[in-house]
């Protein structure tokens, strides 16, 4: 009997040992590579013969660009345009990984907490460094909301600091839990569909409906990750709590 969690196992495809450090090329790395190549091709190929009246794929690339650009400028304000390449790459990679996981027999890269935590940790450290580099010691005013009496500040500042430090945790676990739970449910109902024989039609119909929901969740989680990155960037660039 196979477990529904077997789909998340990492298999080494090319064994590589760098001085005691296991740097093998795994199925996770393979799908990250596939997603990167596909996203790059999808965004650059239609722009080779870019016309004023866009072709279909050029339209798609332009819509994605404009979507992320407007999201960044709406949420992070002035001075945020220099971070657009990062936010756009982040959004397209997470979107690509989430959607690739819905193709049968693929591996969902973002269903591992280490991947999403790496994203969230880099974003949090980066935003902190940007904030301190830009504002210096005034950056610590982020933890001190304005218009609060002193006795309340003694309790409020530690709470604000702890809530700032848990932001990468919540950012990473949100994406990880959505991806893992969705794929686990699909596998469990797949097991039901096989076990029930003729009545397996009912779990099969549920899987069809749930896969539609998973498409929405994949796109939505990529959007939420990107927009929260823009909001955290706003906190770093404009410290006025």
């Amino acid at each position: 009997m196979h477990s529904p969690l077997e789909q998340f196992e990492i298999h080494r495809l090319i064994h590589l040992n760098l001085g005691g450090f296991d740097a093998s090329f795994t199925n996770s790395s393979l799908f990250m590579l596939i997603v990167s190549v596909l996203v790059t091709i999808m965004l650059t190929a239609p722009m080779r013969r870019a016309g004023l009246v866009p072709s279909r794929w050029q339209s798609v690339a332009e819509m994605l660009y404009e979507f992320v650009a407007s999201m960044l400028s709406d949420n992070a304000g002035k001075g945020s345009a220099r971070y657009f390449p990062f936010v756009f790459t982040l959004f397209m990679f997470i979107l690509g990984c989430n959607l690739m996981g819905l193709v049968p027999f693929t591996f969902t890269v973002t269903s591992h907490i280490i991947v999403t935590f790496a994203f969230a940790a880099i974003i949090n450290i980066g935003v902190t460094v940007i904030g301190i580099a830009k504002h210096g010691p005034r950056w610590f005013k982020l933890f001190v909301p304005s218009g609060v009496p002193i006795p309340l500040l003694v309790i409020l500042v530690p709470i604000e600091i702890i809530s700032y430090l848990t932001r990468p945790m919540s950012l990473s676990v949100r994406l990880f839990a959505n991806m893992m739970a969705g794929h686990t449910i699909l596998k469990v109902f797949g097991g039901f569909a096989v076990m029930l024989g003729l009545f397996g039609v009912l779990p099969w119909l549920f899987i069809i409906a749930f896969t539609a929901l998973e498409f929405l969740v994949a796109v939505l989680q990529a959007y939420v990750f990107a927009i929260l990155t823009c909001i955290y960037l706003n906190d770093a660039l404009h410290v006025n709590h």
Partner: protein
Amino acid sequence: MEPEAAKLIGAGLASIALIGAGVGIGIIFGNFLQGALRNPSAADGQFARALLGFALCEATGLFGLVMAFIILFAF
């Protein structure tokens, strides 16, 4: 009590957190629909924000589910 039994009971208890997710999502979309029926022309502009609220609310419920999985498989 055997550890296996304790794990199963713990995972079941941790999944109760999903009640909060259900209630929260219902509140978000209920209020969105209420506002949309009063001002339909402004509804489409705010739908993105409703989806953002839905994702953030779902996240807290899924934190509970992750705790259930940790209890079930990581101990």
